[in-house]
C-alpha cells in the first residue's frame, strides 16, 4: 500500500509541477503546432529556430507586442543538428539562424528561401563588413544578426603579462593551463594562423602542417573545451584559452579584471549568425515582419544590452545603453584588432584533410 501511495504521490507531484509550469507560461513558447495558421487572420504565429542566447527575450516580447504575432523560439546547439531537422522538410519552422558556413550548406540543399529585398526596410542599417558576404552573395538568403570573433582569453595573473599571439598557446611555460576550443575548424584556426597560414586554406600541405602543430601542442594542453573555458580562465585553472568573443567572454572579463580577451596578432577569425527564411514556410508575411523588426536599430541594440553579443547593425551602435559592453573588447574588438581577422567559410572538399588530421589529433 505504501508503495502505491508513494507512487500516486509522485505522480501527483509531477502533474502539479506540470500544471504549475503550464499556468505560468502565459506567453511565449506554448507547445502548439507553430506554422499551421495562414498569413491572413489575427492569430498569426512565427516559429523560430535559433542559437540559444542569441535572441534576447526583450526582442521577442517587443515583436509580439508590436505585431500581435505569437512567437515560438526553440534553440539548437550545433548547425549540424539544426540542418538535420530542417532537412526533413517538415520541421515547421519559419525563421532559422544559421552560422555563415551553414548558410552555404543550406542554400545548396535548397532549405532556405530567397529574401525579397523589396520587402525589407532598414537593410542599409547593416554593417557593410557583413553585407554581401562571400558565403551568400548579395545576402540573397541571409541577413546578418550577430557577429563575433575567435581569439584568446587569458588571465593576466596567471600568465604574468600581456598575451598577443597564438604562439602563446604553444608556450611550455603554461603547460597544463592551456585550453583549445573543442571543435575541429576552430582548433585549426590557431594551428594554421600560428604558422602564418590562412585559416581558410584548402591546401592539403598547409592543413597537414597545422595537424603537426596541433599534435605538438596536445601534451601542453589541459584539454579541449568549448563550454566552460571562460570560468576556467576566470578561476585561474586555465591561464590561456582559445575563445569566442561574446556573452561568456564578456561575463568573464567583467567578473575578473585580470581576465582579458584579445585578437591574436596573427589575425583571428570572424563569424556571423544570420536570420534566414525557411523554404516552404506558410508564414511569409510574419517572417518578413520579423526580419524588418530585427533590422531596426533600437531592436538590434538589445542584442548587446540584453545578450552581450555584437550586433551586425551599424545604426544600432548609437542605441546601445550599456556603455561597458559597447566598449568591451570581449564584445566589440577594436577595428585595429579586427584588421587581420579572417572570415571563416566552409572548407568544401578540403574538409576531408581537416578530418584526417583532426582524427589523428584526437586519438594521439
Amino acid at each position, binding site marked *: 500500500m505504501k508503495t502505491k501511495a508513494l507512487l500516486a504521490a509522485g505522480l501527483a507531484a509531477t502533474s502539479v509541477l506540470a500544471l504549475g509550469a503550464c499556468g505560468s507560461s502565459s506567453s511565449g513558447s506554448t507547445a502548439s503546432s*507553430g506554422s499551421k495558421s495562414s498569413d491572413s487572420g489575427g492569430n498569426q504565429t512565427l516559429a523560430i529556430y535559433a542559437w540559444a542566447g542569441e535572441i534576447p527575450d526583450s526582442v521577442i516580447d517587443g515583436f509580439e507586442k508590436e505585431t500581435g504575432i505569437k512567437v515560438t523560439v526553440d534553440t539548437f546547439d550545433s548547425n549540424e543538428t539544426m540542418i538535420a*531537422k530542417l532537412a526533413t522538410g517538415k520541421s515547421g519552422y519559419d525563421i532559422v539562424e544559421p552560422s555563415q558556413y551553414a548558410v552555404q550548406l543550406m542554400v545548396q540543399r535548397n532549405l532556405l528561401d530567397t529574401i525579397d529585398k523589396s520587402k525589407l526596410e532598414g537593410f542599409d542599417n547593416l554593417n557593410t563588413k557583413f553585407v554581401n558576404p562571400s558565403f551568400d552573395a548579395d545576402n540573397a538568403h541571409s541577413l546578418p544578426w550577430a557577429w563575433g570573433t575567435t581569439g584568446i582569453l587569458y588571465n593576466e595573473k596567471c600568465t604574468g603579462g600581456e598575451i598577443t599571439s597564438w604562439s602563446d598557446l604553444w608556450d611550455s611555460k603554461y603547460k597544463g593551463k592551456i585550453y583549445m576550443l573543442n571543435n575541429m575548424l576552430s582548433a585549426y584556426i590557431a594551428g594554421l594562423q600560428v604558422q602564418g597560414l590562412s585559416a581558410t586554406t584548402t591546401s592539403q600541405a598547409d592543413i597537414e602542417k597545422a595537424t603537426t602543430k596541433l599534435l605538438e601542442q596536445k601534451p601542453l594542453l589541459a584539454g579541449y573545451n568549448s563550454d566552460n573555458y571562460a570560468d576556467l580562465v576566470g578561476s585561474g585553472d586555465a591561464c590561456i584559452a582559445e575563445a569566442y568573443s561574446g556573452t*561568456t567572454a564578456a*561575463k568573464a572579463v567583467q567578473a575578473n579584471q585580470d581576465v582579458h580577451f584579445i585578437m591574436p596578432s596573427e589575425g583571428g577569425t570572424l563569424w556571423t549568425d544570420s536570420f534566414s527564411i525557411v523554404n516552404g514556410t506558410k508564414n511569409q508575411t510574419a517572417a518578413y515582419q520579423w526580419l524588418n523588426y530585427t533590422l531596426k536599430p533600437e531592436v538590434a541594440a538589445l542584442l548587446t544590452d540584453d545578450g*552581450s553579443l555584437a550586433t551586425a547593425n551599424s545604426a544600432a551602435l548609437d542605441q546601445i545603453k550599456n556603455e561597458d559592453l559597447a566598449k568591451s573588447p570581449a564584445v566589440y574588438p577594436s577595428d585595429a584588432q579586427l584588421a587581420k581577422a579572417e572570415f571563416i567559410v566552409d572548407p568544401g572538399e578540403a574538409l576531408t584533410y581537416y578530418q584526417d588530421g583532426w582524427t589523428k589529433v584526437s586519438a594521439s
Partner: protein
Amino acid sequence: MDRVVAWFCRLVFVFLYVPIVAVVVYSFNASEVSYRFTGLTTHWYSDLFHDDRLLATLRTSIVVGVLAALVATAIGFLTAFSLARFQVKGRAFFLGAILIPLIVPEIVIGVSLLEVFSSIGMQTGILTLVLGHIVITLPLATLVQMGAMAALDPSLSEAATDLGATGWITFRRVLFPLLRPSVLAAFLLSFTTSFSNIVISTFTSGVGSTTLPLRIYSSLRTGLTPELNALGTLLVLFTLVVIFLVGVRQMRRILA
C-alpha cells in the same frame, strides 16, 4: 559486516547529495560566476519565476517524462511478466533487440528516428519526443522488472493455485504486491532518464517542444546561469516535501 555496509551506504547517500547541496548553496550566490561566492541573493529565484520560456520547457519535460515512463513501465511489466511466466520462443533474440537502444549511441538512434519519422510524414513534436523516450526507457523498465520476477519464489504461485486461486487472483493478491516495488523502481528510473535526456530530444523535438535539458545544453555556449541552480533546488525541495508529507501521513495511519 552489516554495520560496515550500513555506514558505507550512508556515505553513498551523502555522496549523492553533495552536488545537490552545492546546487542549493550556489542558487543563492550573488556572483554570476561559479568560482566565486560573493554573498547571498534571492535574485535568481525571481529571475526564474519570470522566465516563462524556461518554465515552459520544464513543463514539456515533465509531460514527456510522465507519459514515456508510464508507457515504458507498463510495456516493460507485460514483457518481463511474459518472459518470466511463459515459455515463449525467440526470447534471446527478443531480449537482444530490446537492448539495442542501450548499446547504440543515442545520436545514432536520434538521427535514425528522425529519418523514420520524416519518411512517414510525421512532424516532430510532443508525440515523437514521447516515442523517442520510450525507446530508451523501455530497456531500463524491462530489465528492472525482469530482475524482480526472476527472483520470485515459484512455490508462491504454486501454493496459491493449490489453494484454488485462479490465475488472475494469484497474480493480483500474491504476485503483484511482491512486484510493486519493482514497478515503482522502473517508473522512477524511466522518468528521470527521460527527464534528463539531451540527445534523443535534440532530434525528436519540434516547434515549441524544446525540453529543459535541451534548452540548458544549448545555452552552454553562452554560459549556464545560476537561475538553473534555483530551478534544480526547487525541484529537489518540492519532491522531498511531497515525500515527507506522504511519509508522515502514512506513519499516522499506521499508528492510528
